[in-house]
Structure formats: structure tokens, C-alpha cells
């Protein structure tokens, strides 16, 4: 019954953290911010994290983790609101909710769509929490087995996975990851502590992880959105919504459960995240449904599967992030960056050395779920007002807020400059298919990656064969090669599609141009 105790202890400890009123206040702020951010199309979880990340530095690691996770939970719920009411998903993960949800809205069944989305999101989130604990605790036990070769292989796996699964071109992904690594080389050599590429005094300590990752992930997106000026509220209409009855909710319980499991497991794959989790759950649900023809035309089962999966993926993404130190998604890269700046080192030892982070994760997700249960239904109508906020004002104020937040970390204007320059570079990366997620992940993992390689080789008498031939190391390297193969196949598939479109259209016509 050890597994029961391993499951119960973090859950109880996490719930106990919620006895602190201060933590509830932070979780409430996170929930409100997350629902608003999710309801505003274009503000995904990565940008939402990036905007508040500097402010987490005044919090303790426990408060920071709980706050950020409350934002994630609320955001995954918030993104379904514009999806249903405007056919505009708040984030890509809600695209199928937009399909079925908007169809129901047009038929006058807005309450049914919003209600199913609400219940599925909550159930998915709550079910995923014990799954998360059950899977992450054994992973942290690997800390005692993992030496330098295994840790090096893990960091390599993390980078290869995100390079292979994000973006349409593997070579651009490799270039992006290499760029991230080169940024991280600036500063002190981790073995000799002598300077490397530090041509001005400000670079002697290296480029701070926080400003670099916020610039690459958040500021770049804001600059990209500055290309266009329009308002979201042109499509908004008044509606009447009645919460669905138990008879209407009951048929959605099976797809909700399916989505919860799929979401947790797919979310745990580094580089996967909520969008593929939601798509796979939707597809599986359609396969098992008695009315598959309704999917895409107003299926409540489809909405339930999609919403439960993308909410469950929050906990799924945390499994490799906290258990292995490999971020499960770009927003998790920022979570790790926040913890790194607080002095914590990502890796399998993280949970062993600071188990309160696991409890904080449980507290954040549980607390946010409770608050959404009480307020979520009422927030749906209020979020129509969020969509009415002037989009251009939001973008410009967000840029100013990022500058202020980054400055507040170490009171250095140089950090703000680095952040904005990274934002400019990230803009071009985003526009032309170079993965900013891969670059950011490389920045976060680079130090550990190089240290484990160089110190580890020293421990193994400088023998690369001995270093790499340990069984777990070989297993992880093999997994990396499998992901690399997946990346190659994705690249070739995209190029085939490109050729197909080109051959089927006249030169200069019919291209999905930007």
C-alpha cells in the first residue's frame, strides 16, 4: 500500500497549503488573470506566463508555482468562451471547441455548450491531479539512479523532443536550439569559471535566463501581433445561457473521462502540450461515440473530450517538468526559468530536494479548480467584455508591462534591452518557422547540459564510451533518436504538402501566404 501513501501524502500536503489565506489570494488573482487571458484570442499560456513572470520573483517558489499553475488552469477554461461565443478559439487547443461550440451557440443552445465546457474542464482538471502525483513521484525516485550521463541524456532528450515536435522544419528547429545554446554560452565557463564571449562588463555574469526566455517567448509574440490592427468584439452578440441539466451532462461523462486520461498522458510528452492532447482526445471520442456524425456540427461529446483533455494536459505537462526537469511545453520552459532564477536547479532531484514544489503544484491546480467551480459559470458572460477591450491597447500596454517587470527583477536596464532584442529576434523566428520554444528550452537547459557532459566525462576517466554505455543513458539516447526520426518524418511530410500545393496551383497563386 506504499503507492497509496505516495499518492495521498502530496495530495494532503497540497490541500494543507490551501490553509494559507495569502496563497488563496494569489490563486484567485491567477484565476482571474488566467480566465481573462484565455478569453482574449492571441494571448496563449506562454504569453500569459511571460507577462507575469517577472512578478513571480518577489514570491517564494511555492507561491510562484501555485500562482502560475492557477493561471494555466483558468486559461484553459477561459479559451473556450470566445471559442463558443465567437468561433474564435482563445488558444489553438480550443479550435475544436470552436467548431462544435459555436454550432450549438448558433442554434440557441449556448448554455448547453458553455455548461458542458465548464463541467468537462473542471472534471478533467481534478482527475488529472492524482494521475500527476502518481506519475511524478516515481520519476523523482530516479534521482538516486541518475548520474551525470543520465542527466546529460535527459537534457539532450528534452531538446531533441521539442525540436522534433514543434515547427514544420527539423533543420530550422536545430538552428533554433543551437541559437539558444549559443546565447547560454555567454558568461562564465561552468568548469573553469573563466569568461567566455563576455566582451562588455554586463556580459560577465552571462545573459539572465528570465529576460531571454520572456523576450523569445512573450515579446516576440507581441511584436508579431503588432502586425495587425483589428478588434475582436465585431462578432459578439447577446445571448441567454441556462446551465444544462444532469440528463444533458450525463452522456458527456465518458468522453470527459477519456479526455482526462489522454490529456494527462499526451501532455506528459515533452513538446506535445494541450493542442495535440485535445485533438487526440477528440478523435478518440469520435471513434467510440454512438453519434460520430455529429462531431464538428455541435457535438457535446466532442466539446467534453476537447475541454477535459486540454485541462488535464496542465498536470500532464508538469510530469516531465517537475519530475525530470524537462519542460513539457513552452509555458513550462518559463516555469522552470522562474524556478531557476529563484536558485532551484531543474532536474530529477528538484522534487526530492524541494518536495514543497510538488505540494504547491497540487495546491495551485486544486485551488484554481475550486475557485472556477464557484465563479467560472458567472465569468463566462463577463468575459465577453474582456473581448471588447481594445486589442491594440492591450498589446502596447503588455509590452510596457513586460519592460517594467523585467526591470524589476534586478533593476538593470540592460536586462530590459536584452529582453526586447530577443523579442525582435524571436519575431523573425516566429514568422519564418524557427522554433522559439526550442531556443528558449536550450537556454534553460544549456548550463546543466554542458556541466553534466564535462564533469561527467571527468568522472568516467574521460571515456565517452563508458559515459554513454550505461543502460539508462542508452535508453534515453534511443528515445531521442526516435523523436529525431519523428521530426524527420514531419519535415518530409510538410515538404510533400508544400510540393503538392505548389504543383496544384499556378505560380504565385493559391499559396497560404503571410
Amino acid at each position, binding site marked *: 500500500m506504499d503507492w497509496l501513501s505516495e499518492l495521498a501524502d502530496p495530495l494532503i500536503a497540497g490541500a494543507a497549503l490551501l490553509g494559507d489565506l495569502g496563497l488563496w489570494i494569489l490563486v484567485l488573482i491567477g484565476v482571474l488573470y488566467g480566465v481573462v487571458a484565455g478569453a482574449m484570442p492571441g494571448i496563449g499560456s506562454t504569453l500569459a506566463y511571460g507577462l507575469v513572470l517577472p512578478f513571480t520573483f518577489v514570491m517564494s517558489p511555492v507561491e510562484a508555482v501555485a500562482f502560475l499553475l492557477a493561471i494555466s488552469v483558468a486559461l484553459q477554461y477561459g479559451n473556450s468562451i470566445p471559442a463558443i461565443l465567437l468561433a474564435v478559439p482563445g488558444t489553438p487547443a480550443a479550435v475544436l471547441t470552436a467548431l462544435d461550440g459555436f454550432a450549438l451557440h448558433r442554434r440557441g443552445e449556448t448554455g448547453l455548450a458553455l455548461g458542458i465546457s465548464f463541467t468537462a474542464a473542471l472534471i478533467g482538471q481534478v482527475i488529472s491531479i492524482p494521475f500527476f502525483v502518481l506519475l511524478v513521484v516515481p520519476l523523482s525516485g530516479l534521482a538516486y539512479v541518475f548520474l551525470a550521463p543520465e542527466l546529460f541524456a535527459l537534457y539532450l532528450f528534452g531538446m531533441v523532443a521539442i525540436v522534433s515536435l514543434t515547427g514544420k522544419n527539423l533543420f530550422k528547429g536545430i538552428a533554433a536550439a543551437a*541559437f539558444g545554446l549559443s546565447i547560454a554560452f555567454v558568461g562564465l565557463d561552468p568548469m573553469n569559471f573563466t569568461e567566455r564571449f563576455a566582451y562588455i562588463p554586463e556580459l560577465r555574469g552571462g545573459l539572465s535566463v528570465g529576460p531571454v526566455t520572456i523576450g523569445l517567448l512573450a515579446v516576440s509574440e507581441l511584436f508579431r501581433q503588432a502586425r495587425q490592427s483589428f478588434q475582436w468584439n465585431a462578432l459578439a452578440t447577446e445571448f441567454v445561457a441556462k446551465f444544462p441539466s444532469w440528463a444533458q451532462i450525463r452522456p458527456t461523462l465518458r468522453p470527459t473521462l477519456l479526455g482526462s486520461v489522454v490529456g494527462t498522458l499526451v501532455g506528459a510528452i515533452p513538446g506535445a502540450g494541450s493542442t495535440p492532447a485535445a485533438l487526440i482526445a477528440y478523435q478518440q471520442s469520435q471513434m467510440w461515440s454512438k453519434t460520430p456524425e455529429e462531431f464538428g456540427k455541435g457535438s457535446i461529446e466532442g466539446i467534453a473530450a476537447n475541454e477535459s483533455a486540454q485541462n488535464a494536459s496542465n498536470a500532464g505537462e508538469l510530469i516531465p517538468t517537475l519530475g525530470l526537469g524537462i519542460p513539457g511545453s513552452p509555458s513550462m520552459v518559463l516555469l522552470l526559468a522562474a524556478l531557476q532564477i529563484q536558485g532551484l536547479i531543474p532536474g530529477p532531484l528538484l522534487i526530492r530536494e524541494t518536495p514543497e514544489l510538488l505540494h504547491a503544484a497540487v495546491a495551485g491546480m486544486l485551488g484554481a479548480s475550486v475557485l472556477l467551480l464557484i465563479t467560472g459559470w458567472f465569468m463566462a458572460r463577463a468575459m465577453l467584455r474582456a473581448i471588447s477591450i*481594445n486589442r491594440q*491597447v492591450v498589446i502596447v500596454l503588455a509590452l510596457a508591462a513586460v519592460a517594467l517587470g523585467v526591470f524589476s527583477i534586478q533593476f538593470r536596464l540592460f536586462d530590459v534591452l536584452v529582453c526586447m532584442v530577443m523579442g525582435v529576434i524571436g519575431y523573425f523566428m516566429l514568422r*519564418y518557422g524557427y522554433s522559439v520554444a526550442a531556443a528558449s528550452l536550450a537556454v534553460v537547459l544549456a548550463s546543466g547540459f554542458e556541466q553534466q557532459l564535462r564533469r561527467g566525462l571527468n568522472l568516467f576517466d574521460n571515456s*565517452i564510451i563508458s559515459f554513454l554505455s550505461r543502460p539508462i543513458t542508452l535508453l534515453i539516447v534511443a528515445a531521442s533518436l526516435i523523436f529525431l526520426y519523428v521530426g524527420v518524418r514531419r519535415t518530409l511530410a510538410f515538404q510533400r504538402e508544400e510540393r503538392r500545393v505548389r504543383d496544384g496551383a499556378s505560380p504565385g497563386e493559391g499559396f497560404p501566404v503571410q
Partner: protein
Amino acid sequence: MDRRADLALAVAVVGFGGVLFVLTSQLEPGVYFDPVGKQGLPYIVSGALVASGLVLVARRLAAWARDPSDLVYAEGAEDEAGQPASVRQAGAVMVLTLGYVVIWTPLGYLIATPIYLVSALLVMGVRSISVLAVAALSYTIITFLVFSQLLGVRLPLGPLSELLSSAALTAVWKHV
């Protein structure tokens, strides 16, 4: 997307890799020996940049020979469908944002911020005087009060630093 810009970026990747290689060769080796050394990973990374960049350049040039059109299938994030997009608008916002960082110290937060906000909003097409005024002033004042007074963040205040310190507003950063 425009394949010329994509090609230029690929060339820039090759160039960056080349520069990294040259700079790495100029590093002094460390005192403490290890088989990879201070230069090992930077050399590998520069090689990866050059190699991946060359593959991308070759791919574009080969495709160009088959089809001379400048437009190709988009590989990056796409704009919102049905809405016009302007690279100049984004570029102007980037320049203004970088300029905002540069003028923080000489002008101070309280002067630089409203200038930046109004300029950027005008570039983004906001023309309503009330929106410009309310957004610029309320954001500047609220954030100054919260960060400088409540959170104790030392914001650069430029020429206003003496005035504000004599008005007994604490956490003022004197510009030296």
C-alpha cells in the same frame, strides 16, 4: 511567406555560426582540463548552425530553380485570416520599444512611458484622444505608484528625480 526573406534568414544563420566559430577559436583554454573544454560545445553548436543553415539555403535555391515565384508555403506563425498585416507597423513598434528602453534613463520612467505608449498606439492605428490619454496617463501613474511606492522598485526618474524626492516620494533613484 516571402522566400527571399527566408533565404536571407538562412544565410544569417550560416553567418552567425561562422562568427561563433571564429570567436570560439579565439578563446583561451581553461586551467582545469576536461576532454570537451571551454571550446568544445561552442564549436559543435557553430557547426550545427552552419550545417543547418547551408541545408536551408540549398533547399531554397533548389526550389527556386524549379519555381521562380517569390511566395512559398508558410512555415511560421500565420496572421489572423481576413485582416490586413503590415510588417512596417510591427517594425515601427519594435523600434519604438527599443527606443523606449534607451530613453528610460535620460528622461525617466514618468516621461518616457507616456511618450512611448502614445507613439506606439498611434502607430497601431488608435486615434481616439481619450483612449490615448487615459491609457498613457493611467498606466504610467498606476504602475509608478504600485512599483515605486508599494513594491520599492527603484525606477529611473531622470529630470524629475529631484522634484519627486523633495515631494517626499521615496524609492526615487537619483540619476548620477
